[in-house]
């Protein structure tokens, strides 16, 4: 009896949900994240929960990703409408012909850092000497790393390097096989803390004059041309989500944990969300709303990529080829 009741209820819910979606005829869009959900993405889930996207007539589906590169390829191929991905990675893909462009930059101060457990007392670049650093070969941090070393007067021979994928880096530091890893202040720092229950001290690249924009919203150029209004409405909702998320980090984290219960632990996710919100403003545009990036900041990012990121100067072009603020509210 009870079983039948639940079945009927389920059928009713389905019918209702179906009919409302049908009645309003919203634009269905997919946003593919750069990675599995973590605190950085919390504001997007807040916007979804509070209906900011629905208010703009957008039926948003958030998909988790496996690295910015894959996400950008999916957007370029039209598999995902929007991508939340590393803009430096996008620039590299675009310079190789991928028809993608950044329509908003979320993290305008670099979250890149070299971090270890606080009890190891590695708090300034000189402390890295003689230590072991875990890196992921080919990722954006490992490519900017030589510049950080140059600016801080360190040499590759001053320390030992071990390479591995994202999980191996964490494991290596957790088990003491490495003292430090290259990671994001709101990502790896939190994961280390959650895993070892020990405080983590990140040395931020941005504090030593190495700044580069990070995550942003990427869209296919053809899609942008064909559906400018959808992109505008999406960005309006996204801007609102980021603003509200920064104002009320706890609500954002709660929304994320409700949608993806395994994406983190409340306390540390909150720390991560607060750290993320601090990166929303770049050094050259402290008054702008989120996602609106400064021209100087983008130009510096491009220059850095040309010098250290393996970007070919001949095909690189101008910074404005890779982003636009024209669709932002």
């Amino acid at each position, binding site marked *: 009896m009870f079983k039948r009741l639940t079945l009927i209820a389920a059928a009713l819910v389905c019918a209702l949900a179906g009919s409302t979606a049908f009645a309003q005829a919203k634009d269905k869009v997919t946003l593919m994240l750069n990675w599995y959900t973590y605190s950085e993405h919390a504001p997007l889930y807040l916007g979804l929960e509070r209906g900011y996207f629905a208010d703009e007539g957008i039926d948003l589906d958030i998909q988790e990703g496996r690295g910015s590169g894959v996400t950008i390829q999916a957007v370029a191929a039209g598999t995902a409408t929007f991508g939340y991905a590393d803009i430096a990675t996008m620039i590299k893909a675009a310079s190789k012909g991928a028809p993608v462009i950044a329509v908003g930059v979320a993290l305008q101060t670099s979250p890149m850092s070299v971090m270890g457990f606080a009890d190891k007392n590695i708090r300034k670049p000189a402390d890295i000497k003689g230590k072991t650093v875990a890196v992921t070969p080919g990722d954006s941090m490992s490519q900017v790393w030589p510049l950080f070393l140059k600016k801080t007067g360190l040499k590759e021979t001053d320390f030992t390097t071990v390479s591995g*994928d994202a999980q191996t880096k964490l494991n290596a530091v957790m088990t003491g096989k490495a003292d430090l890893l290259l990671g994001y202040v709101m990502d790896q720092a939190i994961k280390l803390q959650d895993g070892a229950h020990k405080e983590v001290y990140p040395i931020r690249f941005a504090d030593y004059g190495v700044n580069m924009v990070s995550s942003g919203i990427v869209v296919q150029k053809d899609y942008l041309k064909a559906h400018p209004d959808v992109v505008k409405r999406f960005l309006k909702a996204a801007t609102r989500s980021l603003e509200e998320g920064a104002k009320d980090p706890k609500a954002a984290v709660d929304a994320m944990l409700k949608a993806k219960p395994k994406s983190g632990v409340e306390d540390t996710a909150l720390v991560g969300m607060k750290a993320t919100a601090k990166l929303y403003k770049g050094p050259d545009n402290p008054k702008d709303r989120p996602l609106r990036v400064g021209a100087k900041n983008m130009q510096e990012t491009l220059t850095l990529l040309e010098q250290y990121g393996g970007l070919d100067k001949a095909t690189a072009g101008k910074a404005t080829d890779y982003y636009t603020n024209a669709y932002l509210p």
Partner: protein
Amino acid sequence: MAPNARPLWKRVLLSAWARPVLLVILLLVMWDLTIRIFRIPPYLIPTPWAVVQQLVGEWPKLWREGLVTTYATLGGFGLAIAFGIPMALFIAYSRTIESFVYPLLVFSQSVPKVAIAPLFVVWFGFGIFPKIICAFMLGFFPIVVSTVMGFKSVEPDMIDLARSMKASKLSTFMRIRFPQALPSIFAGLKVSVTLAVVGAVVGEFVGSNSGIGYLLQIANGNFDLPLMFAGLTVLSGIGVLLFVVVDVVERLLIPWHASHRNDFAATA
């Protein structure tokens, strides 16, 4: 019709070594045509020509990293032989051991190695050892399964014959059981050696400062698809080469077997 009566070009075209080469050329042409016809952009699939250019241009690096991967593969393959064949012997000869070990072995085979590979780095560090273990884990199972099958499928009549001639257990083993099992053992070795290459790369992917897996990771990070495909080509080359080596050893050891009676027919 005697083969010598055919014209030279026909003999060359139809010779055993030319056929796979022809197929490869055909596939390359189809690959190139597909890219041209469907206008597939180079950030999704590179052109064969770009891959060849990388293969030539980056050859010293590919060779160096390829050697590292080959060492790990051979290490894992060697371990797989050293443990797999004796274990298969025990399983084939004792029902008790079989009932204890075999289910567990199948269970362990179903564990996805990719998922536990990061732990190998935690346990064994960043050296070559975790890659050898990875190669071993993938190469071990096929050897055990085919060796067990080989030892079990010895014809009972032959054993009866040996017994009637009062052959000792050892000489029955050396003259009948082992030689009869060899074809199956080699079938397992061939599967194993190609899987060991995969295992070594999985190990390198997870944590390594060298090897083809490391190169693939860097190429991936830079959207350098031609280099990535060049790396994959070298990797497949290593697989084919090791396969051929096993095949040649097999020919030397069991020239009498049915699969080798036609001169040089079943390589690769």
